[in-house]
C-alpha cells in the first residue's frame, strides 16, 4: 500500500488576504554564495495588494509593504551584480496596472522604478534575462497583445500582436519565456483565452506557431527547456503536456492528463525537473512525474483554491491559497 501523502512542513498564516503570488528570495545567495549567514525569505503578494516578507528561519513576517492598490499578480527576482556590488532587486506586478521595481537595502524596500502596464487582465508578467538586461513581458490593454519592456532603460521594446488570425485569440492569459538566461534568442510562450498556446520570437516579433490545446481559456503554463516539455492548465479537468518541435517550432501535444476536479490556477516545473506541480480550484496541489506523466501525489491541506506555487533552491515547495495561508511542503527532496 502506498504511503499517505505528507502534511505540510509548516504553514504561514497572518496575511491580510488571499495569497496571489510567491517568491523564494535568498539575499545571501546573491551577495555571498558561500556565506553561512543565510537570509532566506519567502515573499508573497496578496489580494489586497500587500507584499509580505517571511523570514524562513524564524518563520515570522519580517516586513510588510503596502504598495499596490489591487492584487499583486507576480513577484520576480531581478537581483544583479554591478561592478561586483550586488543589488537585491524585486519586481512586483500589480493588478492596478503598475510594475514596481524594488531595491532591498538593509531589509528596506525602496521603489527605484515604476512601469505602467495594462490593468484589466489577470495575466502574470514573465521575466527573462537578455545579456544581463531584464526583459519583462506583460499583456497589453488591447486584446491579445503582449508588450515587452526592458527594465534598465524602462522603454517598451516591442509589442507582439497576432495578426494572422481572422478572429483574435482573445485575451492573453499566461506567459512564460523560453530562453530565460541565454541571450541568443528569446522566445515567449503565451496562452490565450481561446485555449491556444502560441510561440513567439521576441526579436522579430513574429508568431512562430500556435496550437489550440484547450477548449477553455489557458489558465497557466510552464515550460522546461531541459526536458523540452511544456504543461498547460485550463478551466476544465485536463492538463496538457506538450513539446516544441525543434525544427518546425510547432507545439505538439504529448499527452492529456485527466484530473479529478476541473480548474487549475498554476502549473510549475520543480527546479530539478523531476515533476511538475499544479494548484487547482479544488484546493489540492498535485504532483506529476515529468518522465511518464503519472500522478505522484495529491496534497490536500488548503480549504480554498490554490492560487500559486513556488519552489525554493533547496526544493522546498510553497503554495499560496485563497484561504490566506501559505503552506510549505517537504516532498521528494
Amino acid at each position, binding site marked *: *500500500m*502506498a*504511503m*499517505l*501523502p*505528507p502534511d505540510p512542513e509548516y504553514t504561514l498564516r497572518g496575511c491580510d488576504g488571499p495569497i496571489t503570488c510567491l517568491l523564494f528570495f535568498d539575499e545571501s545567495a546573491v551577495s555571498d554564495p558561500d556565506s553561512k549567514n543565510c537570509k532566506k525569505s519567502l515573499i508573497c503578494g496578496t489580494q489586497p495588494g500587500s507584499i509580505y516578507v517571511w523570514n524562513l528561519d524564524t518563520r515570522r513576517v519580517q516586513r510588510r509593504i503596502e504598495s499596490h492598490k489591487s492584487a499583486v499578480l507576480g513577484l520576480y527576482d531581478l537581483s544583479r551584480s554591478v561592478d561586483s556590488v550586488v543589488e537585491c532587486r524585486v519586481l512586483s506586478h500589480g493588478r492596478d496596472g503598475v510594475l514596481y521595481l524594488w531595491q532591498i537595502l538593509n531589509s528596506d524596500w525602496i521603489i527605484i522604478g515604476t512601469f505602467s502596464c495594462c490593468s484589466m487582465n489577470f495575466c502574470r508578467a514573465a521575466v527573462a534575462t537578455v545579456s544581463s538586461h531584464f526583459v519583462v513581458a506583460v499583456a497589453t490593454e488591447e486584446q491579445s497583445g503582449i508588450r515587452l519592456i526592458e527594465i534598465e532603460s524602462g522603454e517598451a521594446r516591442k509589442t507582439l500582436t497576432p495578426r494572422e488570425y481572422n478572429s483574435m485569440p482573445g485575451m492573453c492569459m499566461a506567459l512564460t519565456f523560453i530562453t530565460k538566461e541565454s541571450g541568443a534568442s528569446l522566445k515567449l510562450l503565451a496562452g490565450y483565452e481561446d485555449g491556444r498556446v502560441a510561440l513567439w520570437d521576441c526579436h522579430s516579433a513574429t508568431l512562430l506557431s500556435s496550437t489550440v490545446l484547450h477548449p477553455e481559456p489557458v489558465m497557466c503554463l510552464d515550460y522546461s527547456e531541459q526536458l523540452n516539455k511544456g504543461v498547460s492548465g485550463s478551466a476544465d479537468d485536463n492538463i496538457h503536456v506538450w513539446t516544441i518541435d525543434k525544427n518546425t517550432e510547432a507545439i505538439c501535444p504529448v499527452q492529456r492528463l485527466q484530473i*479529478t*476536479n476541473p480548474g487549475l490556477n498554476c502549473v510549475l516545473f520543480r527546479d530539478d525537473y*523531476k*515533476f511538475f506541480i499544479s494548484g487547482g480550484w*479544488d*484546493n*489540492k496541489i*498535485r504532483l506529476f*512525474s515529468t*518522465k*511518464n506523466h*503519472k*500522478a*505522484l*501525489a*495529491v496534497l*490536500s491541506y488548503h480549504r480554498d483554491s490554490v492560487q500559486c506555487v513556488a519552489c525554493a533552491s533547496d526544493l522546498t515547495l510553497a503554495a499560496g491559497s485563497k484561504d490566506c495561508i501559505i503552506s510549505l511542503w517537504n516532498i*521528494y527532496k
Partner: protein
Amino acid sequence: MDDNCLNLRRFVRQSLNVLSQPRNDAEVTSTLTCLLHLASGKYHKQYCQQLAHFDIDQDNFLFAVVEFHKNHYVNVLEFLVDRFTVEWMSLLPKRENGVKLLNQIFIKGPPDLVLIVLGQSISDPGVSYRLNKCIDLLEQLLLLHIEDILWNQCQLLRDDPLRQLWPDIIKFLATIPDRVTAKQEKETSLFFYPIQYVPYLCQAIYKCLQKVHDRIQLDQSCSVEFLSQLVGKLATTGYKEILWGTLLPPIENHLYSDAIWCRVCERWISQIPDRCLESVIVPLIEQASWYGIVGKFLGDSVLNNQKLRFLLMNKLLLVRHYQQSKIPQNILGYLSNSPRTKHLLIQTLHTLIEVWGDSSVLKHTSYEKHFYLSRAIIVCLAFIEDTDKARLKNELLPKLMTALQCHLESALPKIRHLGMVVAECLTSTLDPDGEELKFNADILGFFTFGGCSAQLASTKVATKYDTDEDLKQLKQLLIKPVNPGTSYTERELPEKLGTDQGNSAPEQVAGINTETKEIEELDSDDDLEPYDMSEDVKMTKFKTPVYLRDCMEGLISSDEPERVETCIQTAESLVYKHPANAIEIAVEFTKVLLHLQDNYAMQGFSSSRHKAMVALACVAPQMVAEYLGKEFYARNYNIRQRIDILEVLSAAAQKLTNPSGNIVSGTSKSSEMLIHEVTREKTEPDSWREIVDKRIEAKTRRFSKGRLAAASVESENKFAPVAGYFFFPLLQVFDR
C-alpha cells in the same frame, strides 16, 4: 419358398442354438465367422465351410446374403444383443478372438439395420453391461459408417420398402446424444456430446450432399428426401444453430458458382416436412450472409408452400421482432430476387405500412417491435425497383399520411421522430423528383426542445444517444446489401498485398516502441514512488455533515441538490455513529425521510433513504416502528410511501433479529473489535505466562480433543422485546 431360403433358415437356427450355449470353441468360432461373412457379404471358401453343410456355396452365396440381410440379420443381432452379459462373453473362445468376431458382425453389416437394433436396445431401461457394450458398438459404427447410413438412404427408390425404416433411423440419428447421455450421464463418451456429435453428423450430411451432387453430374438419380427429413428432425431437436453453423459456410461457397449445387439445395430444403419448416428456416435466414443465398436455398417455394409464405411474410416480419437487420434484409431481398416473387414484396410493403401506421398497434406494441417494423419498411424500399415506384407512389402515399399522423400524435418523442424519419425515407425513395418531405427536426434540437425541467432534460439526454444510433442505422438500411460472394476471392488478395506493402512501416513503429520501452525500463529505478491517491476525490460544494441535526437540516432545506445528496448519503452512517443522538430525533428524522422526494433524480437516492430509515428503526425500534405503523394508515400518503413504510419495517425487523449480531451497532462495533485486537497484540509478548502456556500447549499431545472451531457468536435477539411495536399498530386497523 425355395430350398435356399430354407437352408439359410436352418443354418441361422442352428447358429443361434450354438451361440446360446457356447461350449465348443471351434464350433463357436466357425459359426461366428460364417455369420460375419454373411453379414459383410464376402465369400471365403476357407472360412465358410460350415455353410457348405447347408448347401450354401459360392454360387448362391450372394442370394443368401440378400436373404440374410432381409430376413435374418436383425433377428441375429437382437439375439446377440440379448446375450450381452459378462458370463456369456466369457464363454466365447478367447484364442480365436471371439469378441472381435462378434463386434465385426455388428460393424460390417448394413449399418442402418445395426443402428436400429442398437438404438432400440439402448432405449431399454436399466444400466448394465449390455448397455455399455451397445453404446460402444454404436460409437464404432457411427465413427466408421455414418456417411454410409446417410448415403444408403439417398439411393433408395421411391417405393423401396426400406424407406419404412426412415422414421426410426432419423429418430436415432437425431436423438442419440440425448439417449446416450440420459443413460450414461457423466460417463458419456465425448463423442456423444452434442457439441461433438452434431457437427460430425452435419459433416456427414455435407459429404452426402456432395455425393448427391457428383451423382447428378453423372446423370444418375438419387433422392435427398431423407436428408431433408433428418435436417428437419435435427432442427426441431434443438441443434439448429450448430446445424447451420456447420453446414452453411461450405455450402455457401458452392452456391455462388455451381448450378447443380443450387438445385440440390433447393430440392433439399423444399422437401423438409412442414412441421419442421420453421425451426430450419429461421436460423437459415438468421445466419445466411446474403439474401441471394436464401434465394438459392428456397427457390420459388414461397409461391407454392403456404406455410413458408406465412412464416416469411407474416410471422417473421409482423409478429416477431429481432435485433439484427439481417433478417428483414434476407427475407425481403429473397422476395425481390426473382421476378415471380416480386409481387409478394409489394404486397408485403403494403401490409407493413398498414400495420406500421395502425394507431392501436402503435399503442400496444413495444418500441423495439415498432422499430423493427420501421426497419423492415426501409429495407423493403431498398429492394423495390424504380419501375414499380411510380405505381406504388399513388397507392402508398395516402396510407403514409394517415400513418404519419398517428406517429406525430404519439406522446413518445422517439416514436414521433421514428415516424418522421421513415416518412422522409419513403417519400424520398418513392418520389425522388417530387417535393421533398423534410421535417426540420434536427435530432438534437428536437430532443432538447421539450425539456422544460431539469429532470426531463436529463432523461432525454440519456435516451438521445441510442435512438440517435437507431435512426442512423435506419438510414443505412436504404442501401442494398452487397453480395459477399463476389468479394470472397477479392478479400484474400488485398491481405496478401498488404503484407508486402505494410511490412516496413509497422516494424519501424514497433522498433521505436521497444526503444522507448527499454529506456523506461532502464531508468525506472529512480522513478518517484507515487503516494496514496485516496484523497483525490471529487470535490463537492458542501461538506459532509458531521452531526445528525446538520444532516436533517440539510434534508429539510432542500434547495441545493448537492447538499441533499451528501446528506442523504451520510445519513445512515451518522445514525449508527451517534445512536444516542439518533434516538432523540428518531421520529422527527424518520418523518423527514418519509416525506423526502427525489426531486433531483439522484443516483441511489431511494436505497440511501431506505437504509437511513432502517438504521433509525434499528436504533430506536420502539419509537420509529410505532410511528411508522401509525402513519401507514394515515391519510394523504401515496402508495409508494406506504410500501416504503412496510419495506422499512420488515428490513429493520430482519436486522434486529440478525443472527450474526454485528449489524445494529454497525461501524462502532467494528472499531471496538479493532481496538480489542490491537490491545491483545500488545499484551502478548509481555505476559510470560501466556508464552509458557503456549509452549506447553504446543508440546502437549492430547488423545481426545474437542472441536477447536470457535463457537458461533451468540447474540441477543433485539427484535423480541420490540416485536409488538412492529405488529400491533399495523394489525390494529387491519380488519376494519
